[in-house]
């Protein structure tokens, strides 16, 4: 069975059952997944208009009356497929904790302050070459109940749409040199070291804005469609 989007690409993903991350134990299938052909249903995907992403949705520091506390950063990068081709007009959504490591979500009861000037959600669309850019603040690390003294490394959640429903990706962007990496079962659920490294942004001094914000680059690589060129979405 020849597939337009080869399954081999998926080897980079973590195994669904990763017992170190306890919640996977009851939420991962035990029966084998069934391979199917990729039909038009799998090979197409949603197209969104300019109403989906508003002008300032990429800037998480101007959504409220005042500026959020924390270290202002630019997060930008290139959404591409495995063959290195940029993915234009891709929808990129992100959500994150505030500078203290607290999410605005009602379930998060970590005793760190909420910031009335920070929600922590943003949205952007890649340009014609596949580039996106956000302005936000650097999220803090936070504890979670997975095991004794468990702390998540600082991270930003990303949700990305590619050309097809089966190239959909939800991931987390980490920051370089985080001392919590060796202890985090979610980060380490990705068993291949090179693949893990692709979740770590790089410090981007060149695109820092002097006197204003540091910058991190996070390139996102989606499943590719063999080596055959494909038409770009409108």
């Amino acid at each position, binding site marked *: 069975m020849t597939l337009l989007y080869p399954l081999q690409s998926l080897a980079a993903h973590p195994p669904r059952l990763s017992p170190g991350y306890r919640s996977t134990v009851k939420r991962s299938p*035990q029966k084998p997944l069934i391979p199917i052909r990729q039909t038009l249903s799998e090979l197409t*995907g949603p197209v969104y208009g300019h109403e989906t992403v508003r002008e300032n949705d990429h800037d998480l520091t101007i959504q409220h009356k005042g500026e959020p506390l924390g270290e202002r950063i630019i997060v930008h990068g290139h959404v591409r497929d495995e063959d290195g081709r940029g993915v234009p007009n891709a929808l990129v959504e992100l959500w994150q904790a505030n500078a203290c490591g607290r999410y605005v*979500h009602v379930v998060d009861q970590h005793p760190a302050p909420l910031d009335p000037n920070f929600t922590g959600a943003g949205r952007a669309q890649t340009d014609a070459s596949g580039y996106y850019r956000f302005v936000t603040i650097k999220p803090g690390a936070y504890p979670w109940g997975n095991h004794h003294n468990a702390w998540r490394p600082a991270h930003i959640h990303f949700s990305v749409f590619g050309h097809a429903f089966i190239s959909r990706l939800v991931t987390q962007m980490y920051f370089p040199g985080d001392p919590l990496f060796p202890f985090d079962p979610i980060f380490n659920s990705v068993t291949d070291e090179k693949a893990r490294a692709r979740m770590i942004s790089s410090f981007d001094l060149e695109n820092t804005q002097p006197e204003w914000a540091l910058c991190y680059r996070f390139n996102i690589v989606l499943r590719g469609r063999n080596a055959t060129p494909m038409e770009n979405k409108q």
Partner: protein
Amino acid sequence: MSEQRPDGITPSQTVGPYFKYGLTPNGEYAWNDAFTNNLITPDVSGERIRVEGTVFDGDGVPVPDCMLEIWQADAQGRFSDPQDARALPNSSFKGFGRVGTDANGRYSFDTIKPGQVPDPDGKPQAPHILLAVYARGMLLHLYTRIYFDDETANTEDPVLALVPADRRATLIAKRKAGAANPAYVLDIHLQGDNETVFFDV
């Protein structure tokens, strides 16, 4: 851009427990929804239906922090995507929806019954909706399909034919008897005896 060929895709990570305010705020947070669970547009043709159910974990406990996304063709079997060269440009129907499960693990989508979509050989598939499942505790989302129990085309569907007969029911939504508006029920079991069939695709 002529960037160097990457050495692999970016690995998936869980949506975690706190995606709601970013992805499915539904009026509860200071953020707007990019997508909702109502796909119906004023001009869309076809039978308006609701698809609903509950998501369960391996202990049979409802999953209250699950996100579901659907992707489907319109009533004529056409996708709102220029990659579907047959697509009809005269409908604002987008075919994509997203919802977060509620505190009881329940979800619903208001949409239209999709038409038949050809398989790679041009053979018609039975009407179906693609479903992607995301949750805390899921490091990588799962793909499944929603079929309808009142479609005779199910017996000829090339994808259902790949599924062992005793598991096919996990993919087939049941028409609700006595509902004022057409509604179908399909529960999702992430694990266990009634585990939903998920696809390696």
